[in-house]
């Protein structure tokens, strides 16, 4: 089941979606058993921004039909806090997991900025750190000048990727947003700008209303007003978008969205994904990634 991805050799195709598995917190909860049976072939960090972020006001979650709406708001320690506090611990964890696996577990750092300038500074900060094997760029962020999500407009996306591309020699993965008119056009734009890979789908924009008491006015449940939908409900959307993107670009594709089983992962690989990320299913079972990798290995054609 080993697989090559952007020059990295992975033991199997299953990784985590950014922001769905805090490996440091998980190690506190589950101890060294987490390291011995690490569920992912590469580890993707949560999104890191230049400045620290506290995240959105609660409530942050809503269970929808076969899905989960979240509005977490990308809490993180900021670039400096990440590099000083989290990176050494994540690198040590990945190295220990790799030793247990007898291979390597590359660390992919996910970053987000509101302009090419901000993203460039994030890439500069990561560049000297050999422990970071690759970078993933979260472009589901409003552009500081236009207000439009950077990843939602192909032209803007291509400009930003082209501008930041020279700032790193590491593989650069662009995490596409599904909240756009034509995700394949966006994927082509990322490729034209110099991306080494694209990953999709991020969560679909979604909202829920708070329970109404008597004649009270309707108001959003989530503290931030709206959020993003993940889970089994979006798997078929992911299948369509991953297929459309894989047909449109030459670079490798990381597919994700509602994957719960080896058969689900197989579907995304069959339509063109090289790697498959698991997110919401890890919430139900922290060891789900490992189970899905084992199921995938038993799938016909694997």
């Amino acid at each position, binding site marked *: 089941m080993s697989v090559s991805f952007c020059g990295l050799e992975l033991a199997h195709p299953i990784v985590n979606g950014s922001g769905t598995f805090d490996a440091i917190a998980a190690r506190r909860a589950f101890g060294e058993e987490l390291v011995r049976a690490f569920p992912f072939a590469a580890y993707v960090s949560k999104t890191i921004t230049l400045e620290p972020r506290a995240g959105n006001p609660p409530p942050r979650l809503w*269970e929808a039909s076969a899905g989960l709406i979240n509005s977490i708001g990308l809490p993180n320690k900021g670039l400096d806090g990440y590099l000083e506090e989290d990176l050494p611990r994540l690198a040590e964890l990945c190295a220990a997991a790799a030793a247990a696996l007898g291979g390597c577990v590359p660390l992919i750092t996910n970053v987000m900025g509101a302009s090419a300038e901000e993203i460039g500074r994030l890439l500069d900060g990561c560049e000297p750190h050999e422990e970071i094997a690759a970078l993933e760029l979260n472009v589901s962020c409003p552009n500081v000048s236009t207000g439009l999500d950077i990843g939602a407009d192909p032209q803007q996306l291509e400009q930003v990727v082209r501008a930041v591309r020279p700032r790193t020699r590491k593989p650069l993965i662009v995490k596409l947003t599904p909240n756009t008119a034509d995700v394949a056009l966006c994927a082509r734009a990322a490729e034209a700008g110099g991306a080494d890979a694209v990953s999709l789908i991020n969560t679909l924009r979604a909202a829920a209303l708070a329970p109404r008491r008597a004649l009270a006015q309707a108001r959003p449940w989530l503290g931030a007003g709206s959020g993003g939908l993940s889970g089994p409900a979006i798997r078929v959307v992911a299948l369509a978008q991953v297929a459309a993107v894989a047909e449109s670009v030459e670079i490798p594709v990381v597919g994700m969205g509602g994957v719960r089983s080896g058969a689900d992962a197989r579907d995304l690989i069959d339509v063109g994904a090289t790697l498959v990320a698991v997110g919401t299913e890890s919430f139900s079972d922290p060891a789900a990634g490992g189970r899905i990798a084992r199921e995938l290995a038993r799938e016909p054609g694997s």
Partner: protein
Amino acid sequence: MSVAPFGRRLLEITGIEELGAYVVLRAADEGPRAEPGQFAMIAAADGWGGGERQRPLLPRAFSIARQTHGETHFLLEDVGPGTRRLAELRAGEGLWVTGPLGRGFSPPQDGRRAILVGGGVGIAPLAILQDTLTAPATTVLLGFRDAARAEGAALLDGALLASDDGSVGHHGLVTELLHEELDADPHAAVYACGPAAMLETVRRICAERSLPAELALEAGMACGFGACFGCAVARRGGGYLRVCVDGPVLDAAELDSIDEHAGAPSYPIAGHM
């Protein structure tokens, strides 16, 4: 802090008993001993994720109410699709469990008397706490909405009761009993779990009297092990704490107030975890 086995494990339901308006769910469990206040993420092995409106999907967080004779006990009230499915479980059926998780209660210091204050289904972690406390005297104060819910008090020994409707014990709030206890003997440490409004009153009383208080919080959470960042509560001085990994038991001094969403749910909320 007890470390949990990595990954969810399948336990067998050994029994389920009604306790007034509540249900005590028991499962055979060879896993690690929980510290009082720790919790687990639980889900029915069958009929989870395919019900009405395709819910429940995610596991639900429950305090570990008791561990005895190789069994772990959970206390639940049917308030939504997850708790409804759990309340239907029968002996022999499977239960997915991840845990024990989170940080529990710490024992009282300086010879203080432990006062346990519980409200509604939030009494659960106080039962295992009472089982383990060796302090010379422990006072238990429990509040319920009505007589059917007050039957839950059987989970603990020697509780003084309050009820909203006056059907059982003191007609009023359990926090009024707390005032009386503290007036009689203020050398105490307070341990509380219950609805947000109750926790907020306990927090304020203890702050005014400069008493140590530990509050077991509740929050909608998807994972229980720090992955989803969904269970945030505001921290004193800014930022947020994750109830699952920083709590669920928090020192009251870490909080400025109790968010309305951070207590044991007292009414059904569609979509709430």
